[in-house]
């Protein structure tokens, strides 16, 4: 197991190098002179300032050299300063990552809380009312664009009923209850699509397991339905669901880009959108690095969870 963990961690290195280099190259392949973009169109006439910017951000050096310089600093923890706000990129990402983590976790929990019971009910009552309603809702939720659903939630719970805030973010440390109130609508908007996908996966995995011989044996022994499903079938059915839920974390973070913008939440998604539009190379590069590490780490943890859930899976071979 230890060797497996070490091997997987070492595999992170080429993945991260590849991802960061591709993003570095893409940001520089975007049309327009990066120095001019940084300076803003109207002021671009000033060659002295352009020269100063090119020097400061090493834009006067070949692309591979720029990448190696950035990498050298990044390895020592220095991601530079934002070219727009002048804040340290590491500080900025630190603040924003916490927010997105809170939102993502909340959305993921909502997704799990809805999808697993709904998937079980759908499988157990296959072809009957709970299955038909659950499936219809799931198809609707998958088809629904996140931003549209978000606006509908704002109009209903924020404007019409006045129960929840329409936008904004409160840190959990400041006021936990208010923080949850602010986070509920965006987390719901983000979690509902994910719940639909996980629910469908849960349903089909459980149906498959429920058709296996050992379940028939359990039933033949006279075990109650509840004990059969929750005690014997669920654990096996959870394996593919865990995979999907792990992948969903990546999708939730991707969806956070839209939802954070809609609800005015200062998370990583918004930071990245803003940085891309403002050609803030240092922030984009640092953000991608952190997000890539996060996604790789989640996939890694998901793989380890298999072994916990299914004792037959061992990684030492």
């Amino acid at each position: 197991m230890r060797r497996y963990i070490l091997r997987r961690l070492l595999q992170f290195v080429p993945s991260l190098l590849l991802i960061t280099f591709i993003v570095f190259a893409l940001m520089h392949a975007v049309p327009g002179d990066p120095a001019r973009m940084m300076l803003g169109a109207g002021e671009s006439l000033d060659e002295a300032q352009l020269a100063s910017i090119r020097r400061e951000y090493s834009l006067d050096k070949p692309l591979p050299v720029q990448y190696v310089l950035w990498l050298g600093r990044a390895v020592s923890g220095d991601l530079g300063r934002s070219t727009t706000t002048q804040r340290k990129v590491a500080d900025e990402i630190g603040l924003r990552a916490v927010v997105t983590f809170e939102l993502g976790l909340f959305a993921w929990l909502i997704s799990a809380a809805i999808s697993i019971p709904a998937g079980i009910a759908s499988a157990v009552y296959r072809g009957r009312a709970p299955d038909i309603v659950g499936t219809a809702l799931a198809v609707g939720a998958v088809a629904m664009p996140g931003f549209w659903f978000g606006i509908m939630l704002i109009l209903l719970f924020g404007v019409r009923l006045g129960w929840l805030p329409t936008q904004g973010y409160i840190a959990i440390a400041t006021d936990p209850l208010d923080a949850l109130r602010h986070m509920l609508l965006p987390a719901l908007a983000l979690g509902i699509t994910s719940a639909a996908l996980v629910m469908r996966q849960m349903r089909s995995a459980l149906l498959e397991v429920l058709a296996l011989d050992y379940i028939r044996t359990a039933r033949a022994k006279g075990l109650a339905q509840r004990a059969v499903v929750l005690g014997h079938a669920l654990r096996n059915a959870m394996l593919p669901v865990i995979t999907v839920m792990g992948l969903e974390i990546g999708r939730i973070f991707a969806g956070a880009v839209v939802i954070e913008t809609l609800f005015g939440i200062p998370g990583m998604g918004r930071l990245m959108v803003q940085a891309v539009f403002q050609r803030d190379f240092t922030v984009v590069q640092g953000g991608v690095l952190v997000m890539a590490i996060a996604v790789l780490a989640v996939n890694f943890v998901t793989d380890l969870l298999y072994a916990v859930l299914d004792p037959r899976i061992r990684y030492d071979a």
Partner: protein
Amino acid sequence: MTELDRRTLLKGAALGAGSTVLLARHGRAAADKPQYGGKLRVAYQLAPGALDPIVGRSGGDAYYWRQFCDQLVDADSSLKPRPETSLAESWDVSDPKSVTLRLRKGVKFHDGTAFNAEAVKFNIDRLLDPATKATPRAAFTSVESVEAVDEHLVRFRLKRPWGSVLSTLADRGGAMNSPAAVKALGPDYAFRPVSTGPFKVAEFVSGSHVRFVRNETYWGRDGDGNPLPYLDELVMNIVPDPTVQVAALKAGDVDLIYLPVREVGNFLDNPKYNVNTFEGGGVSFLLSYNLAKPPMDNINLRLAIAHAINPEGIIKAVYFGRALPAKGGMWPNGAWAYDPTVPRPSYNLAKARDYMRLGGRPGGFEMDAVMWPSELNTPTAEIVRAQLAAIGIKLNLKVFEVTVATEKFYYGSEAPLFLTSWSRYPEPDWNASLIYRSDGYYNAGKVKDARLDALIDEGAATVDIEKRKPIYRKVDEIVLGEAQMVPMIYGITYAAAPRNVMGLDQVFGWDAKMYLHRMWPRKG
């Protein structure tokens, strides 16, 4: 009951021609005595780049720094200098080689240090240093050096006459930063600014909000001599989606927003809210030509296009009637240089067809145009394409994100035509030097026009507004007469607030940005 029966229409007298406020009958803000204290929550679409006014590069910066900065020279809504609200009490611009400013006494930065001539010198020297990468540096190239003559007298030595000096000092470069704070904070000053204005920055949570508190020692007074600002606290929330801004206002989560045009009718009909308008808040739609790129190097074909587009139709279909057909040039109504009597192309299909014939293309032609997508731009471009088809022009729209579109058109010679919008720039030299001069960034074809260069140099060297007016009229006559750049629609900026939020009639400055130090929530 008609709208005007139910409402009282007040002219925003303090701001001059640009601003009109529609107040519900019970919301007579002007008659109420201001109450001190309270908090105002505003929602803005754009996040600030940096809060340091000279380092920030985002169009959204001014919404923020206007709240905590003063100007060396402040201006009214037509951009005429207003010494009573300026950091300089008086100025002498009679010498073409220098500008002398007499500074207000007793003004302090938020950190308690004195605002004086040395501070002005520090600020302008910092701005001129290329290493600062100051956004407004190009606007200060006339300055040779700055000299602190005494504690409250500062002199700018000039390389050449600088006609737009007073307007320029009313913008980014005229906002003063505390030298002590700049030196102490280094690059961190960009998000922890210290200036002289009515509010102090208390908290800047990137991507979320900026919170300001009252500057207890602020020197400014309202018309009755009461100290400003009235508010204890001001929170500017960054809410990128206009639909959510409107929802937040309706839900009572914020107190003031810029209103999207599609919502204006609903809010005017709603007695719970007041709406203020600022006409000429920008050029919402214009035809920007590359004069060197065929077929738009042909004056007749440019005029044909300008005559074939019906702005009234676009205003009706896209702007819900909440915009104005452009009657003048690139300095919109409300600006002192605005002149609606200059002859300019207007919608006339017969004339458009005549110009197509004169241009040698009576059967029409195919042409590319650059544009960037937005709620207003996209349908506008589609209508333009349909309107030009009526005179046989097939327009191929090339869509890019706004920064890329701007760069590609003005620097990359991507297409002969750009369908775009323009911020409100009431100082004619800013636009003339950038767009019409042969070396101007926005002169896409870098076409040299000796007549325009001479007029622009003359305008830039003349300080007296009355003498500058006829110069910029001549500029407009050439530019509009030859369809070099044709504004089609002037925007109207709308702001909405619940009826208990007072001071809405005084909220807009010359740049159509909100200045919030005269606002206050009425209690009870």
